[in-house]
């Protein structure tokens, strides 16, 4: 402000205390700070309009007469009122501060449970529309979804106002949100006033007015409070996409550049009729290159039967062995539920981290024998063993893809939770709010 505003001092006709009128040319009502009597500022004798009968006094967080700078402009707090809505029998009160600048006019600050909004009167009239079948308005290129409508009552006033204000005044309010913005209408019998508010950090307000104490911590989620997860969710999914591209590039690289070399490929026959030793060893083969995996594929012609293989991959020189067993079973049939099948004729296993060297495979096949199964027929099978060195192993890639999903899914769930808490305070609590602040920019 270039020059300090002129202040007119008058005496309260109710209590005799001094009443200051800062914007006397525009002020219609002034409230005595001492006795809270509402006075008519338009008459020289300050006619009493309403006496305060409440027992409690409310201390505004921004004191009356306090000046501060918002967006490099000086503003003075000249009026304070408390308004209340009752939802399901529960009263909810919020505080409104009327700020004045002789060159800019008026603007408002509202505070509810530590959530602040910087409010200005809208000069454009919003046009009604619907979003997902629910009422909304459009103004200044943005769509605001209806949040709540209620009857608001003024329960406490202090300072001066450019309109007729009384305790007990009632207006119909409707809030529409597109975080961090909120458009509100106040409807009386005579007029509809539209305003637009922007969610503001309380610390910014307290710094602007050079208030020494800390602002009250916000509680809960406010109607137009921007979601801290909105931008984070988008970034998380972008990062996820980038990492998945890298993952599939890595997968492609290994599928192309792994050796995938066949080192053994032989077919065999087994029957339980043979009374000799079933186990045997293969020829020696060489596993070349670095420490890498070896895949053993067993293909059989089993038909409603099973076979078990005891395998040992043994290094001829060092005696280092990799001992493992595999079962192959293939059953199928038809019953009252229809046809069914279990298992398969083939099996595959990847032996991890096998050093290079000369190896052989010890194989010990086994099938159901008469002694163990009680049957009388011999069991037989043809089978083929194929060993491949350095094969691509995709299980880790799919596992990694799952792990990469964790952060974005977690963030998305947090965001959804935040939106649920927001809309739980609305007229659409417990229902389908749409759950997103997408009508504003995501970030």
């Amino acid at each position, binding site marked *: 402000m270039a020059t300090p505003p002129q202040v007119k001092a008058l005496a309260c006709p109710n209590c005799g205390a001094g009443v200051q009128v800062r914007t006397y040319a525009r002020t219609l009502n002034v409230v005595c700070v001492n006795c809270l009597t509402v006075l008519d500022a338009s008459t020289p004798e300050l006619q009493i309009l309403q006496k305060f009968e409440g027992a409690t006094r409310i201390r505004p967080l921004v004191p009356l007469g306090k000046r501060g700078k918002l967006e490099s402009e000086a503003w003075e707090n000249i009026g304070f009122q408390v308004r209340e809505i009752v939802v399901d029998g529960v009263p909810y009160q919020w505080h409104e501060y009327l700020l004045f600048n002789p060159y800019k006019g008026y603007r408002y600050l509202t505070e509810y449970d530590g959530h602040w909004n910087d409010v200005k009167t809208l000069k454009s009239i919003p046009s009604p529309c619907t979003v997902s079948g629910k009422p909304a308005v459009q103004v200044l290129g943005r769509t605001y979804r209806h949040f709540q409508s209620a009857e608001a009552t003024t329960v406490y006033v202090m300072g001066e106002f450019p309109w007729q204000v009384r305790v007990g005044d009632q207006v119909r309010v409707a809030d529409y949100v597109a975080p961090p913005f909120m458009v509100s209408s106040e409807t009386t019998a005579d007029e509809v006033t539209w305003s637009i508010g922007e969610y503001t950090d309380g610390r910014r307000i307290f710094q602007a007015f050079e208030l020494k104490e800390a602002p009250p911590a916000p509680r809960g989620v406010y109607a137009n409070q921007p979601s801290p997860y909105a931008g*984070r969710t988008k*970034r*998380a999914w972008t*990062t*996820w996409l980038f*990492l998945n591209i*890298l*993952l599939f590039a*890595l997968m492609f690289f*290994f599928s192309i550049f792994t050796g995938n070399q066949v080192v053994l490929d032989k077919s065999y026959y087994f029957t339980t009729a043979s009374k000799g*030793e*079933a*186990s*045997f*060893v293969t020829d020696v083969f060489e596993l070349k290159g*670095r*420490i*890498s*995996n*070896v895949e053993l594929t067993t293909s059989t012609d089993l038909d*409603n039967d*099973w076979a*078990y293989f*005891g*395998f*040992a991959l*043994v290094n*001829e020189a060092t*005696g280092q*062995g*990799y*001992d*493992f*067993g595999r*079962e192959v*079973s293939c*059953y199928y049939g038809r*019953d009252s539920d229809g046809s069914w099948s*279990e*298992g398969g004729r083939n099996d595959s*296993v*990847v032996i*991890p*981290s096998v050093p290079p060297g000369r190896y*052989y495979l*010890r194989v*010990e096949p*086994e099938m*159901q024998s008469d002694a163990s*199964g009680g049957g009388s027929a011999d069991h037989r099978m043809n089978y083929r063993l194929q060993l491949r060195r350095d094969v*691509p*192993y995709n*299980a*880790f890639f799919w596992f*990694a893809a799952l*792990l*990469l999903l964790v*952060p*974005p899914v977690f*963030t998305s769930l947090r965001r959804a939770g935040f939106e649920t808490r927001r809309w739980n305070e609305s007229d659409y609590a417990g229902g389908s709010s749409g759950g997103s602040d997408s009508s504003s920019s995501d970030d």
Partner: protein
Amino acid sequence: MIFGKLFLTYGLAILALVGIAEYRGWSLNTVNEVKGVPKTIRNNPGAYRSHFMFLPRYIGGK
């Protein structure tokens, strides 16, 4: 922003681990590593008994 960097670091660590696993030939399959398998097995395969042969096994069928 910190979350984004943490996620990127986490993701790159996973990719690095997958790359190492793939290069070193890791696998989720279980094998029993035994040392000092006697060379006589080549001449007498039946003398060796895999411990997997004593595990209970499924004998199939619905």
